[in-house]
């Protein structure tokens, strides 16, 4: 679609939507949000870019194929389940690493976060595979 308004707006929106999708994903641990919904917003951002600039431009921007994203995401999610093996616990048992940052602040890393990142990537990859397949027609 050749519209200068859409092009200008989508460049701005791309950044905002991607940031928002990451926010949604991180928020999802104990509030509404999560990898699935975040992934949908992320995929929507790229899809908007594809509508404004054509799917080839969107593919070039992504650099890797959407199916690779599905694979990496699935690997991350399964790996999150396997982390419990190191502790001799059941599959998918949550593992936490709390890193102190000084002044009372701490960074909580966990296997559920890794799982959610996996879900995010799988959703982005799946939706974009479908979007690109439709655009190619």
């Amino acid at each position, binding site marked *: 679609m050749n519209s200068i308004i859409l092009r200008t707006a989508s460049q701005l929106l791309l950044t905002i939507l991607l940031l928002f999708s990451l926010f949604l994903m991180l928020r999802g641990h104990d509030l509404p949000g999560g990898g699935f919904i975040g992934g949908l917003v992320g995929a929507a951002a790229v899809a908007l870019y594809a509508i404004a600039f054509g799917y080839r431009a969107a593919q070039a921007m992504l650099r890797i*194929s959407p*199916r*690779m994203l*599905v*694979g*990496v*995401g*699935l*690997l991350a999610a*399964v790996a999150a*389940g396997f982390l*419990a*093996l190191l502790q001799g*616990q*059941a*599959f*998918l*048992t*949550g593992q936490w690493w709390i890193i102190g940052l000084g002044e009372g602040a701490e960074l909580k890393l966990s296997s559920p976060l890794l799982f959610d990142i996996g879900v995010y990537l799988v959703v982005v990859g799946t939706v974009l595979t479908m979007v690109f397949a439709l655009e190619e027609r």
Partner: protein
Amino acid sequence: MSWLVAAPVVLPLLTAALLFVLQSRSEVQRVLSTTSTAVLVTLSVILLYRVSEGGILVAQFGEWRAPFGISFVADHLSAIMVVVTGVMAVATAVYALRDIDGTREELGYHPLFHVLLAGINGAFLTGDLFNLYVWFEVLLISSFVLLTLGNRREQLEGGIKYVAVNLVSSMIFLGAIGLVYGLTGTLNFADLAVRLPEAPGGLVTVIAMLFLVAFGVKAALFPLFFWLPASYHTPPLAIAALFAGMLTKVGVYALIRVFTLLFVHDVAYTHTILLWISGFTMLIGVLGAAAQSDVRKLLSFHIISQIGYMIMGLALYTPLALLGSIFYIVHNIVAKANLFLIAGIGRRLTGSFDLARMGGLYRGAPFLSVLFLISAFSLAGFPPLSGFWAKLVVVLAGARVEAWPIVAVALLVGLLTLYSMTKVWQAAFWTPLPAGERMQERPSALLYAPAVGLALLTLAMGLWSGPFLALTEAAANELMDPSIYVRAVLGEAAAAAMRGDTP
């Protein structure tokens, strides 16, 4: 120990992830895919061995205890089904090496195959009603893509019928799950087995019928079967064989699970309906097959007909009948999938799936004829092949409870199946090739290997049926006493309370 129970699902998922990443390297993909199925069958056999030695194994994911977390439960039935899935996975993965073309590989055949396996095994192992729904969706979506991979017109037509009907069934399934949750406040199988008897019987019966419709579609029961012959003849044979063997059996498994563990409050009502359905399913399937001339469609109708026997075993609801039902499932998966594989080889030799245009296979490929004879006569129930024992036990169980009408139907359908198989034998093997047609060159040994393996398995199940029957007997006894399942998942207290409620 809990890792072993999760392995049949985690391994295919992990393999699928690696295969997605290795998308562009088809040589590596093939090796990885086949190796993974070999590991899968090994792990499954270990699982079955452990279950047969030490009883039901339970995994609580994330160490959230049942009924709050998701449990995976491997009892005899689940473990047997997982082993059969593993066997079918190896057979079809090897067959696919020569049957699946480069385009389909590029479109993602290999990863989707493993996602499908994960879905099937997940459905067999899960101990949670909603989780069962999730695995059903996983296998539905991956099977839909596999079915339409290649984008031919007839594939899309079959695929749309397949997905539309199955989506409706999923919606009914989901609705029924909601009602169960509203009624009992739990979705864990074991917890439901304890709580459903306290719920109002009439409502439970209504919910049971909703599940019957939902799983009836998946299992291709009368009158909800029509999507199956409309779609199963369209994909390549490696895919069709896996579908024909496994997918409807997941539906049958789900029916057996819910109608032995959950909905046994009014057996006289619910299981009588099942019995009627089983009779019609047998008859309609075999009559439909008689009208077909395409081998794949003919075999598709036989799938439906054979499902009837399995449901008949469930409907009679005695230990012997359930034993027959489970043995029948195992026998049928092996024999039926093999017939699809053999049909694929026959197609390569004669250039057609149409019985009128096939021929001369007895002269041209005597070895293939032997393979066909073993599987086809096993399907028809000829002694001493596996199908004979399967039919014998089911019919015997019917005779024991003096359900003569269904016994008569079962015997009649056996005869008609034999007629149908003889028709294929005569048209494809005995009749000479039509004038002007020539036998193609020998197909690769990689196509023959799985067919030989499955034929040997059919023979083994017939000639040394003892160990197989012993395993299925253990499965049937477990199913007849739900408190064993409850004790394994929730502990002794819950099981004791349950036995107190239902003496």
